């Protein structure tokens, strides 16, 4: 043995293995273990799926009560035929895991505040935020409630869980999803709690904006003083076209929320001077303001066939793998098709052989902050109803990769968790002790709503199913083969007095507590209206005659609802194709009003040549946010610049971001009051700016940006907007960037940068249901599969797939049916 060369080469070999087996730091992130990652037998190459993969399979599962047949169609949509309901959910869990395992695991990790565990201390601020908001607490409440009170749902979620775990059990390490190999961790067993955590995340995504907005609005009010605030943030929307038509009479309210005496001073702070700004630390994540949706149903009286058509397109973050997974579930009790959530049993938005349903976000405020006074820094007692009351301590342990655990001690109070305290602050919380009260913390029966909707046969079944729905409040649209259409806003909504919960509320006694939850019967509902359609687009559901306060105007976008209703009113002899055109419609109803308002104030003779050219192009624009239009880009930048010129001075000087007034505020002012005093730039003491000067200043400012865009060839709307469907890790290589698509905020086709119609569905309720749909993703979550993003281009082009919804024999014989997965009992 030649010792020295042996040692040298052995060290070199071991050294190289060690380097290639280590995650090396690249910037803020880490590389995969390169040797492992590149190994063709274990690494990412194993995820490169054969384009001609045959998905036929035969699976033995002891957990099943009977055999289950799954047929996969050419878009990789599974059609599950089971003899027992629980078996169907077992198989749904198995298929979710087979095609979406990493995503299910990742999304529930986010909800549970467990990102640091896989991604390191970098993600700690996100984890702490979710822990302190009570996400895990809420999921635990739901789990406990269902385990104790709802054996049917427990069995459903248990069967689903068993299905996920059956897939996990047979999964070999080399077949782990791509992202596990990239980020170097492994999946863990699914549990019912993970399903509830996922649903908590949806509650957060759709109602959690208040967790940020209430603080920001409080700070904005404190900064501006109440009088100016009241002027700029009025909740009055003159052009509102509510979900329930104006003038509809509402029943006498069973709760009369009473505004506490003295609250003008103590709560609204009508005379309060500016508060001091404390030291700042980390800032939280806020759900997208544009999380919303469209849905509508037209009655047979307005359709060519004489049968209703129902449409639903939820607007959410656009991600790969998609939030949605298409599935058909057929058992002796029901036959349902639609979009499901990987992570949860049943179909969420879809139809069965009797009816169809869809949802949009209600936008109602169901999350409030209460300011606490602790006796001392131990936070063991807080002042409540005239005495020191004990808190209980909730401990949340956050594991951090390559670092020590972080422990969150959260004081639990009458209101809920003390989210912000001496240990946890952000720039908006300003060192206050704040407890959060949220309907999301209450036990949820949401799974049962969908379980029952999947099986509903008629309007009464629909009402019973949605009556169980609590959070996040939704507008459930409904249409049946028998000809009924309806929409109901359902959820646990707080019976609020005017402005209750817009700002942080005093929490030293029950004076500002919720005075009740509005009974279901008093939630806004409309069935078979004379106008022949029902619709919602996140606008306020009711006019001012409704007896309860809904929340701030910022939660209720105005213009999509106006667009949808205007079109539906004018349409007759409607076909499914007409409905597809409406879902993908790019007309800008806001610009229709705002452009002439701007033009009233623009004085071309005072503008530079470039600005004149831009204004001219804007005036020639056809008001459609189509892919190649330049006018919309110019309009948007000019409008934004004018808003900055008008509001910028009032909001400047604050060290933390304040809430910008809604666009309709400025627009209304332009249309009715050209001597709008807020237009004056308060920073220039010696002169008074008029709205006209500010508008022309805005145009010049916008022109500078527009000229840059022109040089970069980004003046066309889709190039400027650069819509992208982002992988959940935000890694561009795994995402679809710069899609050729129009639309935008305020547009029926609500496609903005990374947000928009996440599932488009049109259901024509003919005898054999004629349904169309798609989402911007693909059925496989594997970036190495041709089915990873197979719907994206079609979606961007505004096209639809005809959905295959057939009884078993017909489906087996259908030419689009490609594969068969058999599940057998042992």
């Amino acid at each position, binding site marked *: 043995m030649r010792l020295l060369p042996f040692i040298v080469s052995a060290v070199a070999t071991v050294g190289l293995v060690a380097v290639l087996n280590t995650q090396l730091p690249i910037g803020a992130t880490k590389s995969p273990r390169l*040797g492992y990652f590149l190994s063709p*037998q274990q690494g990412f190459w194993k*995820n*490169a799926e054969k384009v*001609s993969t045959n998905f036929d399979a035969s699976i033995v599962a002891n957990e099943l009560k009977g055999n289950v047949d799954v047929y996969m169609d050419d878009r990789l949509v599974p059609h599950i035929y089971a003899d027992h309901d629980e078996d169907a959910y077992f198989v749904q869990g198995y298929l979710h895991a087979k095609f979406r395992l990493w995503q299910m695991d990742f999304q529930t990790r986010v909800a549970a505040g467990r990102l640091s565990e896989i991604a390191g201390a970098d993600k700690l601020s996100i984890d702490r935020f979710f822990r302190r908001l009570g996400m895990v607490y809420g999921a635990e409440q739901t789990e406990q409630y269902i385990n104790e009170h709802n054996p049917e749902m427990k069995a459903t979620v248990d069967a689903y869980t068993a299905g996920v775990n059956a897939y996990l059990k047979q999964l070999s390490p080399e077949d782990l999803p791509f992202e596990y190999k990239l980020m170097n961790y492994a999946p863990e067993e699914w549990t019912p709690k993970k399903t509830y955590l996922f649903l908590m995340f949806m509650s957060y995504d759709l109602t959690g904006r208040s967790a940020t907005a209430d603080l920001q609005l409080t700070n904005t009010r404190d900064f501006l003083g109440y009088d100016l605030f009241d002027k700029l943030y009025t909740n009055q929307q003159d052009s509102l076209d509510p979900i329930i038509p104006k003038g509809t009479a509402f029943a006498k309210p069973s709760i009369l929320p009473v505004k506490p005496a003295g609250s003008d001073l103590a709560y609204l702070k009508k005379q309060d001077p500016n508060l001091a700004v404390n030291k700042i630390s980390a800032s939280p994540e806020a759900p997208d303001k544009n999380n919303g949706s469209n849905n509508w149903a037209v009655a047979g009286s307005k359709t060519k066939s004489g049968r209703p058509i129902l449409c639903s397109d939820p607007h959410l973050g656009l991600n790969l793998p998609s939030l949605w997974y298409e599935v058909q579930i057929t058992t002796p009790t029901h036959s349902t098709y639609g979009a499901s959530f990987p992570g949860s049993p049943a179909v969420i938005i879809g139809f069965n052989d009797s009816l169809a349903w869809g949802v949009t976000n209600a936008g109602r405020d169901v999350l409030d902050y209460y300011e606490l006074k602790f006796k001392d820094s131990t936070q063991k007692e807080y002042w409540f109803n005239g005495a020191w009351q004990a808190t209980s301590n909730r401990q949340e342990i956050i594991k951090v990769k390559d670092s020590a655990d972080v422990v969150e001690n959260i004081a639990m109070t009458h209101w809920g968790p003390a989210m912000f305290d001496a240990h946890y602050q952000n720039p908006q919380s300003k060192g206050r002790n704040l407890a959060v009260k949220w309907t999301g913390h209450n036990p949820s029966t949401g799974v049962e709503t969908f379980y029952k909707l999947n099986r509903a046969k008629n309007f009464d079944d629909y009402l019973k199913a949605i009556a169980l729905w609590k959070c996040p409040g939704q507008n459930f649209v409904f249409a049946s083969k028998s000809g009924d259409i309806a929409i109901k806003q359902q959820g646990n909504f707080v019976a609020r007095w005017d402005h209750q919960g817009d700002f942080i509320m005093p929490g030293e006694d029950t004076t500002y507590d919720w005075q009740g939850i509005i009974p279901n019967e008093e939630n806004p509902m409309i069935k078979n209206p004379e106008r022949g359609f029902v619709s919602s687009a996140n606008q306020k559901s009711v006019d001012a005659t409704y007896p309860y306060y809904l929340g701030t105007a910022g939660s209720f976008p105005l213009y999509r609802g106006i667009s949808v209703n205007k079109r539906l009113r004018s349409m007759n002899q409607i076909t499914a194709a007409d409905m597809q055109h409406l879902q993908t419609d790019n007309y800008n109803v806001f610009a229709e009003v705002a452009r002439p308002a701007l033009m009233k104030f623009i004085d071309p003779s005072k503008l530079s040549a470039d600005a004149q050219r831009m204004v001219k192009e804007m005036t020639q624009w056809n008001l459609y946010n189509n892919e190649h239009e330049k006018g919309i880009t110019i309009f948007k930048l000019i409008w934004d610049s004018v808003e900055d010129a008008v509001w910028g001075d009032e909001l400047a000087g604050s060290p933390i971001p304040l809430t910008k007034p809604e666009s309709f505020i400025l627009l209304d002012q332009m249309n009715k009051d050209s001597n709008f005093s807020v237009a004056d730039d308060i920073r220039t003491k010696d002169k008074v700016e008029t709205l006209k000067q500010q508008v022309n200043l805005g145009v010049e400012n916008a022109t500078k940006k527009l000229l840059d865009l022109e040089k970069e060839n980004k003046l066309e709307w889709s190039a400027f907007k650069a819509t992208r469907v982002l992988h959940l890790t935000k890694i561009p290589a795994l995402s679809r960037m710069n899609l050729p698509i129009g639309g935008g905020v305020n547009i029926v086709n609500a496609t903005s940068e990374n947000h928009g119609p996440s599932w488009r569905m049109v259901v024509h309720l003919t005898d054999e249901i004629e349904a169309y749909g798609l989402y911007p993703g693909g059925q496989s979550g594997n970036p*190495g*599969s041709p089915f990873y993003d197979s719907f994206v281009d079609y979606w961007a082009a505004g096209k639809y797939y005809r959905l295959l919804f057939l009884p078993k024999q017909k489906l087996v014989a259908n030419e689009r049916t490609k594969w068969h997965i058999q599940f057998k009992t042992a």
Partner: protein
Amino acid sequence: MKNTLSINLKFIVSLLLSALLAYAVGIYGNLPWWSFVITNCIVAIAIVQTPGKAFLSGALGVGLLWLILAFVIDAQNQHILSVKVANLLPLKGSFIALIAITSIVGFLLGGLSALTGSFVRKA
């Protein structure tokens, strides 16, 4: 003449044995991805060659195995994943570069491990 032939035969047998054993231990996802380092070392101990030839037969054994596997997988996948990974790593989206790097990793580790083995027995 006879000598050269036997050396060439040894070389080819080692190369094929390296590849075969590396493939065999690679099938089991529960074994570490670098298990072929051990088998390669054993091949080099069992079949005595000069260190240079041992290195080359081990390197080509694993390097070619990985090249062929990656190439076949990539062709059947129509480059869907390799282009994404080649943008991620970053290799400017070149699947050819990605296949090359894959086989170079196999080549280097295969060679070094065989070289180490060759020093166990005096050449």
